């Protein structure tokens, strides 16, 4: 075991982690621990753009953007945080341009902007051009630009280091962050990183679904690490299903395709979104569009022999426009489906895309141990966190924005904290013990259960029971199945017993994280007896602001006999200028 000492440690090297690292490296001795090489992070898969009311191509302002974000999140958004997001969006985009990001340009040479779902002029009048973009590779350009600037700033990376535990030391009854424990993929060695400040920026958890746009590596490692140490997870029942994933594969086809004029059609060729969202049509918010697609499918208007998908139709758009604005997604259709989008519509279905919930933080990125108490030295930003700027449903282009605004904020706040505290918090006794025991147990187990089987069954039950439509019965089915899988997981064994590059072992660790988080999601969803944003209960189809306009806070509890359970608590929504209204697009 090796012990390292840094001022600031960042967990994850996607957009949020690297944006934080650029700030914190200038201000404190920083290490970035990442399970992937930084440029492999899933920020790179984001396509359509980053919202900011630059007003480069038409009238726009940050207040309209704030309103759209609050409405898009179905009034579960903390409105103070949404206002910061929308205000700081403008400088965030300009920062990236100055760092070198190659945005598409207008004829005047300014950053070009395009339409995106849920973003509107003057509180819902009509779609507005707010998304700053680089073709359909905006996430790729952000990831590359941030990595380039990390190289420029000399950011210190520990590549292929998996953070498996969060170290907490209690001082006078208050939980303080002491550091993290990491597993080095290349050698199998355990490393303890003692740090004054730790920032989680480790991304999402979509791999507990089967049809998902998420990478294989998005297994909620950060959420699971803090949750196991008794810290809460907020609003985990809210998961976004992006309307246009490639049928059965789940690969993302950007909403920018509809922003450029693409249309969703059912088997009769009907533009069905006109029925569900008369103003915004195909550019309604993602939760609304995904439910509409499944309504079409359920009512027998789906396409194909099994009627299990609908079409994204780009055939009326000029090929030059597709080549210039949507080159990557049209290539995906050709590569994976053998379809020519110039002439044929693309079969799509909703795909599990984004966790609105996560580790609760305030607007400085400080992690909370309950509704109000900050954990000194612990920060989170990006998809791993819940500020909450996305509420019950995130607007497209607000996640690339979130990672930049709150990544920067967390990086500055953590580094400033590191500079103000004189000494490191003392490490707990035998700090690596939990990770050492976990790894040893998995490596030496001779149980008969296999990781791939349990993961497959988990993904199937999540797709069947807690996707776009949920009922008490389906969620209970999921809760029971997850409990069964968690029990079976105790008997899981791996074939690779070695030390070097043991990805077999790490897949087992990741599955454990997915199981913990799936359970939190299902239990949180069961208790929320209303429909709001991405959480739609067929048995409670209406939003219930009296009882449920509040954030879910889920805590792991361990009884004296070692039994684990989940305790749910609730946190009020921060409301500033917007009263909840009925949500129409």
């Amino acid at each position, binding site marked *: 075991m090796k012990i390292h000492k840094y001022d600031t440690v960042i967990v994850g090297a996607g957009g949020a982690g690297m944006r934080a690292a650029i700030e914190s490296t200038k201000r404190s001795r920083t290490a970035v621990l990442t399970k992937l090489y930084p440029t492999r992070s*899933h920020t*790179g898969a984001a396509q359509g753009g980053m919202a900011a009311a630059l007003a480069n191509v038409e009238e726009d302002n940050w207040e309209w953007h704030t309103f759209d974000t609050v409405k898009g999140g179905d009034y579960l958004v903390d409105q103070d945080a949404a206002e910061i997001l929308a205000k700081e969006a403008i400088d965030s985009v300009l920062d990236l341009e100055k760092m070198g990001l190659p945005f598409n340009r207008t004829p005047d040479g300014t950053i070009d902007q395009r339409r995106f779902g849920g973003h509107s002029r003057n509180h819902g009048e009509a779609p507005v051009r707010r998304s700053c973009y680089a073709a359909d590779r905006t996430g790729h350009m952000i990831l590359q630009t941030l990595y380039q600037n990390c190289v420029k700033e000399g950011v210190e990376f520990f590549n292929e280091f998996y953070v498996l535990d969060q170290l907490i030391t209690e001082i006078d009854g208050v939980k303080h962050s002491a550091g993290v424990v990491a597993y080095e993929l290349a050698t199998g060695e355990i490393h303890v990183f003692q740090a004054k400040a730790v920032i989680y920026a480790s991304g999402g958890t979509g791999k507990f679904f089967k049809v998902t746009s998420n990478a*294989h590596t998005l297994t909620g490692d950060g959420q699971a690490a803090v949750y196991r140490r008794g810290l809460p997870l907020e609003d985990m029942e809210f998961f976004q299903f992006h309307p246009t994933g490639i049928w059965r594969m789940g690969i993302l086809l950007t909403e920018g395709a509809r922003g450029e004029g693409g249309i969703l059609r059912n088997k009769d060729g009907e533009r069905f979104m006109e029925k569900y969202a008369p103003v915004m049509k195909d550019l309604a918010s993602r939760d609304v569009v995904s439910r509409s697609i499944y309504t079409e499918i359920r009512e027998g208007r789906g396409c194909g022999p099994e009627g299990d998908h609908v079409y994204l139709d780009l055939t009326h758009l000029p090929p030059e426009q597709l080549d210039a604005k949507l080159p990557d997604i049209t290539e995906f259709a050709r590569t994976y489906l053998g*379809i020519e989008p110039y002439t044929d519509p693309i079969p799509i279905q909703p795909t599990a895309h984004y966790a609105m919930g996560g580790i609760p933080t305030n607007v400085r990125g400080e992690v909370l141990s309950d509704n109000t108490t900050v954990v000194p030295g612990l920060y989170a930003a990006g998809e791993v966190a819940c500020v909450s700027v996305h509420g019950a449903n995130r607007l497209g282009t607000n996640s690339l924005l979130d990672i930049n605004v709150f990544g920067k904020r967390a990086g500055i706040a953590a580094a400033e904290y590191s500079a103000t505290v004189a000494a490191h918090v003392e490490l707990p006794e035998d700090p690596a013990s939990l990770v050492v025991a976990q790894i040893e147990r998995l490596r030496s187990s001779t149980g008969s259960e296999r*990781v791939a089987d349990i993961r497959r069954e988990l993904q199937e039950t999540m797709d069947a029971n807690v996707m776009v439509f949920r009922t008490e019965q389906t969620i209970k089915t999921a809760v029971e199945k997850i409990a069964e899988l968690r029990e079976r997981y105790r008997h899981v064994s791996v074939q690779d017993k070695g030390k*070097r590059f043991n990805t077999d072992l790490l897949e087992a660790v990741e599955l454990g994280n997915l199981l913990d988080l799936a359970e939190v999601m299902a239990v949180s969803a069961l208790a929320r007896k209303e429909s709001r944003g991405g959480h739609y209960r067929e048995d409670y189809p209406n939003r219930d602001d009296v009882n449920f306009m509040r954030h879910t806070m889920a805590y792991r509890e361990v009884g004296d006999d070692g039994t684990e359970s989940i305790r749910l608590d609730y946190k009020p929504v921060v409301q500033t200028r917007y009263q909840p209204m009925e949500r129409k697009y």
Partner: protein
Amino acid sequence: MATPTLDKADGAGAPEAGFADSPYITATFRIRRFNSEVSAEAVWEDFQLEIDPKERVLDALHKIKWDQDGTLTFRRSCAHGICGSDAMRINGKNRLACKTLIKDLSPEKPITVEPIKGLTVLKDLVVDMEPFFQAYRDVMPFLITKDTNEPTRERLQTAEDRERFDDTTKCILCAACTSSCPVFWNDGQYFGPAAIVNAHRFIFDSRDEAGEQRLEILNDKDGVWRCRTTFNCTDACPRGIEVTKAIQEVKRALITRRF
């Protein structure tokens, strides 16, 4: 609009599709294995599996790892050609495993899968990427400007100037190009195509002011002049970047000092 009908898409990429004829075939994957904890020698190992030929090579590797041999080791993440983790040599050609469909590989014969060449193999299909990223870092892959007063708004750039370097912004640093280059195989000193592509991305960006410095770096004896224009890199690039052309443009800029 095109009327949606039962078109050629139906059943694509779907092993469960209820067609009378099973879409599955039996394919053999001949994989180069190496694990220093087991043996000092690399060996070929054959795996047979039933698979839909419309699936990706990465799907096949997963099926092998998850159902047959958990020790099989490779890198992957996004699984659709964006993250650059899974460049490997498949049937003798560098490709991304997640962007290569089995049906395009003559699956009636054994499909060979081996690590990319020119970088040290660490385990099975995993190679040491550090020398590759070092070459990338050496070309100063970030925007450098000399203005003392930063503009308050964005820098202006015409759509035409933006287009000038568009091709080389697509690079995902997968190393398929560099590890297909015979000059790079010879000795690891050559910067390699990927680093030059990333230098090109800044040399031809109208906002950048360090083109001369980057050109001097690439004027080195291990720089662009070692390129023998074999076009392997262009063939290998999964992003369709005209790599050889970019290298030629850098060479020309070195001669004319115009860019």
